């Protein structure tokens, strides 16, 4: 019961006729000598933390980060949905967006979240899981299982590439989260392990090259909005895979491409706040306002 790559994971699941979530649960049991109940209870606890973060971000009045750069946008989206605005991208996509932003805003406000796989990308997975559960009328168990799917996919990405903006740019952070989430939503929707892997590839391909350029080095701008869009991309990628669309480049090769792009990315675009949006006139001014002087 072992896997290192996405291809191995899919093959393992298919040969044993088990879902990806089950392959991850069994691997965890074996490596750490823990019981199924213990592992599932821990993951269910994580799901509870995610739900609380969503609720907090959508309901707490005047939720702002210490810097004042973020907070309140999730509630704006929720109000827009409730007021029945044009909803050009559809109510479910916007629900995902508002939930993903909500968790990301709570994170910026030093609230409690689950790193998935990092805090900078913590909104995408909960935003999609809770919206998909509503749409699919999925129970708590299916949601917990989805977290194991995304963990399995993230495990393959993390051990073959990277998952933090500092090492591989935002494609490694929000990109990985989006890809892991797309795969998880596919299993919730009844897709096959191979379809989960295709959703991962489709999602990650659309994040390749994304740089990590946070204003003032903070996990706020543009991170909160990238979590929002990551949620939207994950849902669309999951739908594409469920429709039978396949990535021309196989999933592991897409991860390999992400790794090489990240390695080639200059340091100024890897969380140092020296390039990209952080280096714009406005980005610099905000940085100066927060720290009193440039932190370079």
């Amino acid at each position: 019961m072992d896997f290192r790559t996405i291809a191995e994971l899919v093959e393992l699941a298919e040969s044993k006729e088990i879902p990806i979530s089950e392959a991850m649960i069994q691997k965890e049991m074996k490596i750490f000598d823990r019981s199924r109940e213990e592992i599932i209870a821990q993951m269910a606890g994580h799901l509870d933390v995610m739900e609380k973060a969503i609720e907090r971000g959508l309901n707490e009045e005047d939720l702002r980060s210490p810097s004042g750069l973020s907070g309140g946008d999730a509630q704006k989206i929720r109000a827009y949905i409730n007021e029945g605005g044009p909803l050009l991208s559809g109510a479910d996509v916007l629900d995902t967006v508002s939930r993903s932003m909500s968790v990301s805003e709570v994170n910026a406000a030093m609230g409690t979240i689950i790193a998935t796989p990092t805090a900078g990308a913590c909104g995408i997975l909960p935003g999609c899981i809770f919206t998909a559960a509503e749409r699919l009328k999925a129970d708590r168990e299916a949601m917990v299982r989805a977290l194991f799917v995304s963990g399995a996919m993230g495990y393959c990405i993390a051990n073959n590439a990277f998952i933090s903006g500092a090492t591989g740019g935002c494609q490694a952070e929000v990109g990985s989260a989006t890809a892991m989430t797309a795969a998880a939503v596919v299993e919730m929707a009844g897709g096959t392990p191979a379809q989960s892997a295709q959703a991962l590839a489709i999602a990650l391909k659309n994040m390749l090259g994304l740089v990590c350029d946070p204003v003032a080095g903070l996990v706020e701008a543009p991170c909160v909005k990238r979590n929002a869009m990551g949620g939207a991309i994950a849902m669309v990628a999951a739908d594409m895979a469920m429709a039978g669309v396949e990535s021309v480049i196989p999933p592991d090769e897409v991860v390999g491409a992400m790794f090489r792009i990240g390695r080639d990315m200059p340091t100024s675009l890897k969380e140092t706040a020296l390039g990209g949006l952080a280096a714009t006139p406005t980005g610099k001014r905000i940085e100066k306002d927060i720290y009193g002087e440039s932190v370079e």
Partner: protein
Amino acid sequence: MKYRSVFDIIGPVMIGPSSSHTAGAARIGSAARSLFGRKPQRVTITLYGSFAKTYKGHGTDIAIAGGLLGFDTSDERIVQSLEIAREEGVEITFIESEEKSDHPNTARLLLEDEEGRAEVVGISIGGGKMEIVELNGFELRLSGSAPALLIMHHDRYGAIAKVATVLAENKINVGYMQVSRKERGSHQALMIIETDQSVGEKVQREIEHLEDITSLTVLS
């Protein structure tokens, strides 16, 4: 494999905003506290790279302080850790270093009290994971994700075999092992053993009493 558990990916539960700058930093602080073995009176923390540049905005300083006080990454007291440290009489000083470090998120912690001192260097590698890369001048690699024994011993043949025998007799499997010494002939070496099972007190005492073993620290 850098990441072994599904909870390395889906987790930790943490106080925001950054897994590398906040959660990873808290874990460096708590590992340093465990390695020191008691509450320090003074801690001097030197921050390098991205830690030095952005620590105020990410709460890296309060996260390390929280870890030093023994708070978990999800403990909401982290937000007030600097005040709590003052109340508890732990004096913490931060130094921003311009020096280039091998890893962008590096912190060097000097922990002191009347009985002694420990110097610990940690790096935060992403997703809340960290590694201790230096302890009192010894290079090492310690992830903190598995229980670990840190054993100071005389740099003599047979010392490692004796410890391994005790572990084998107690059915404790070694996941990863390394030996570090500052230079040949310095007479002191550090053995680091990550184990799959946690090591109980009885086994710890058995190891401590072995010939050539000078001290034992347990990280669990």
